[in-house]
């Protein structure tokens, strides 16, 4: 099973599309590793620098409709090869969300108020996150504080995460 712990990258924008996560010109690559340097390279977001801001991050927190647009699985792959296995947002586009779980990664939706609070309390600080999958709790930590945020992982999504993805799950069950 993949790790869902580590440093948090806050992306304060809605409707971040898969063209922004990984531009189409890199879809000619046939290895996931080749996508690594190009993650979020075309993201329209002030003060975001893909060259410096992604390094060492393992979790993204963002706003609504994350991953909209193209069905390209290169988007979650580009996250995966950069060590980002978990995206937390207000909502997700369906295909991106499914692609994420299909790779044994997680895309977890939280209520708007919770996302607002995470942005206001944590986005300016060095924040880490620990995921307790069994209890379904995210533990956000900074140097001097800690917050427990419950989340809900549906049964099927949990099985995909445990199995390592949809190919593994489908092969075992169908």
């Amino acid at each position, binding site marked *: 099973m993949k790790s869902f712990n580590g440093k948090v990258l806050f992306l304060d924008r809605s*409707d971040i*599309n898969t*063209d*922004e996560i990984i*531009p*189409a*010109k890199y*879809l*000619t*690559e*046939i290895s*996931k590793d080749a996508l690594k340097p190009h993650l979020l390279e*075309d993201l*329209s977001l002030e003060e975001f620098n893909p060259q410096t801001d992604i390094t060492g991050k393992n979790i993204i927190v963002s706003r*609504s*409709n994350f991953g*909209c*647009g*193209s*069905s*390209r*699985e290169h988007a*979650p792959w580009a996250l995966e090869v950069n060590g980002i296995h978990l995206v937390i947002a207000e*909502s*997700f*586009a*369906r*295909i991106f969300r*499914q*692609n994420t779980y*299909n*790779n044994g990664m997680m895309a977890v939706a939280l209520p708007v108020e919770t996302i607002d609070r995470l942005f206001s309390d944590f986005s300016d600080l060095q924040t880490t996150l620990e995921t307790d999958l069994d209890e379904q709790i995210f533990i956000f930590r900074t140097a001097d504080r800690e917050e427990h945020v419950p989340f809900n992982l*549906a*049964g*099927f999504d949990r*099985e995909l995460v445990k199995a390592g*993805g*949809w*190919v593994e799950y*489908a*092969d075992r*069950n*169908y």
Partner: protein
Amino acid sequence: MTAEGLISHEVQMTPKANGGYMGKTIAEKIFDSHLIDNPYGDIHIIRLDAVFCHEITTPMAINDLVQRGKDKVFDPDKIKVVIDHVSPAKDSKTALQGKILRDWARRHHIPDFFDIGRNGVCHALFPEKGFVRPGFTITMGDSHTCTHGAFGAFSPGVGTTDTEVAILKGICAFHYPKTIKIELTGKLKAGVFAKDVILHIIGQIGVNGATDKVIEFAGPVVDEMDMAARMTLCNMAVEAGGTSGICYPDMHTVDYLWPHIRTEYTSRQAALKAFQPLTSDPDADYEAIITIDVGDLAPMVTHGYQPDCVKPVEEMQGTVIDQVYIGSCTNGRMEDLQAAVRALGDNKISDRVRAIVSPATPEVYQKALDQGLIKIFMDAGFCVTNPTCGACLGMSNGVLAEGEVCASTTNRNFNGRMGKGGQIHLMSPATAAATAVAGHITNSTLYRKNT
């Protein structure tokens, strides 16, 4: 293949608590007839009638299957394969993607593989070949797979892993479909097309307005639309987050499919009768029913960088553009080229623009040649390219430079989609043609003849 029995449209009835039966949407009926398993909650594993593949999202699935020692296909006759996104190959990488797909199709004896020369934009080519039928379940590693809902199919775009499992096992997992019904009333004015309607709808409900839901297009406006127009509508369902677009099959559907189904049904009426259960029941349960009167709708165009940033063309009149692009799975069909030519008249394009038309399939290209459309485009100053997705996603055949603006009949105006730093205004083929003549965004009524 035998007559009416080829596709079963028998509808399973769900008992209501108070007796009688609950009404169902067309998407629910299709789901119920394809159910394999219901492992958790509303997750349904469904059987797929067709799995479509192209060279951008399938090669990674093929490579993974090979690596896992599972290089098999569930049914070579149900897998349809095309090289369309970059065609012909533009470099070694795209040549390799084509080669992986081609070699795979050959070693698994997949009969319907469309190589360079016989290839077209998947969502135009596969319906044209008769691979889409009412009641089908279809997936493809391409978000605009929702196009095929125009035929009364459940047809969601998926990713590469879903495609991998689909290739291997012919199944896919979905939440049980919730549906938003969009009832279109009124009568479209001359110069207003399905593209204007769908842009207007997305502008109304937003890029997130139909996430995780099927969009059912119905009402007198849809009843009158030909299949090309319905495909344009359904094509952009995903731009509102929709899982699939869907229309009820009717005589337009039967007429379009007739060359491919004539051996399966004794008459068109018999085919229609077989398809008729594929409609939503009057008491079906919808997430929302939205009625939109499109009688007063004007030609629409996008501004900004999301497909829900939509305005009447009038309000964008005069916006200077550098390139015009007519083509794609949204608007590269014969009817689209005809509408563009009507708007073009015998005018030349403006000196300050370059214009590109890409017929979506070889058949469209051939018909456009036979009917003199290609000559009209060329005389006007258009570059006519072979069928390919190319410019729509900034891959080839019309990539923008930084700061350039394109008037395009495609489906996405994301920042940099057609080339980093380039801007796209989405519009109908008629508006795009008129814009090519003017050199700035303008209404096709200024140029249109014979409407």
